[in-house]
């Protein structure tokens, strides 16, 4: 039995190609009726938005494994603020965007859906994807 795991580099390469294939063909996805209709519109990123309110490493001392995620979100507030959170907190707590889930009480400290959307959005952004393309991917998986 072969139990050797695929290398991290292979993972990343595979992810890159998969995601590129996904995002280069959003029209095809829509034509196939594949993407679930969004629960509501994504918010427009607020002018001049910053990541200053995103929790810092010091504020995440009880959950250190989440520090890289919060750091990644803090770096791209103009992207994360343009994404609707699909965990339901947006409706129940009147949060403006996914960015709100990483600020203040920071629902993303405990909610794996908030975390997953943040990770997906930030890694797609690193691959050079636009906000619209990221929204399509978020909707496909979480909406």
């Amino acid at each position, binding site marked *: 039995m072969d139990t050797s795991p*695929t290398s991290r580099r292979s993972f990343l390469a*595979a992810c890159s190609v*998969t*995601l590129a*294939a*996904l995002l280069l063909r959003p029209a095809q996805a829509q034509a*196939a009726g594949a993407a679930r209709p969004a629960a509501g519109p994504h918010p427009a990123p607020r002018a001049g938005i910053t990541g200053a309110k995103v929790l810092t490493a010091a504020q995440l001392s009880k959950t250190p494994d989440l520090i890289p995620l919060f750091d990644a979100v803090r770096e791209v507030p103009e992207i994360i603020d343009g994404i609707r959170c699909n965990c339901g907190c947006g409706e129940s707590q009147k949060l403006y965007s996914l960015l709100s889930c990483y600020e203040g009480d920071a629902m993303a400290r405990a909610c794996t859906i908030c975390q*997953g959307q943040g990770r997906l959005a930030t890694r797609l952004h690193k691959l050079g994807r636009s906000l619209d393309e990221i929204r399509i991917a978020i909707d*496909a998986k979480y909406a």
Partner: protein
Amino acid sequence: MHARVSHSLAVAVLVVLSSTPARAQIRASELGSVSQTIDGTKITMQYSRPRARGRNPLFGTKIVQWDEVWTPGANWATTFEASKDVTLEGHRVPQGKYSVWMVVKKQGDWTLVLDPTSKIYHMDPPDSNPKQVRFPVHALQGPFTEVLTWSVPDVRASGGTLAMDWGTVHVPIKLDVAPSLPVAIAEADAQPFLGRYEYVEKQPGGKTKTSTFTVLYENGTMKGEWFPEDNYMKRFALIRIAPDWFVPGLYDKNGEIYEVLRPEMVIEFTRTTGKATSLVVRNEDDGIDATGTRKP
């Protein structure tokens, strides 16, 4: 002194009275509601609930007369609301809120009437009009139900049964919702993904487990299964959510999908010159649970 005490008492009475909810009242037919979400479609029945109060039978009497256009409730007409288009007994009901009426028959099927005017008093049943949705329903005999009850006793992945019970009458109504994800896929679209993959799954303690993951095409659906077999998932549907992303749909013993693992398990394929050569399985927090590479 006496006047002062009386004044204080009056104020106290007023405070007590004003703190009592203004609309609190015992009613013969108390307001009730039931709602059910199925695959993202929410239906809600809102109605006043008459009680039998020793009256039996109820139908074919002055309470509910034969051939009467009756709202299955009391006071303001019972309402049915659907957040998306649905079908009831095979009849399309567009998204919206309707008042609900039944044409009560001594023999044969009754007629269910949904009128787009939702706020109607029970004494003013609407005339037949082209905007109504009308269809026959079976009025069956069942155990005695004291308080008129709307319920959803049966829920499936694609619908359920909406039911009205009062007295010994039981009226089941088949409900179907539009699927949020299409399970069917053209064989040509599935072809690039079909085949066997060496599947390496993360295990606790940093260990891995290797199995064979097979993607096949069966009855218009792309399906996946492992060898050795996974006893929980068995053979499952692979439902497309993006060009190269799929989520598992688990089948019950009747071959109906009862659960879709989205976003808990998204299988992301990677293509090389059009054909899938590898896959990554991501969980809801976007972490990687498993990988796969196509077997020769």
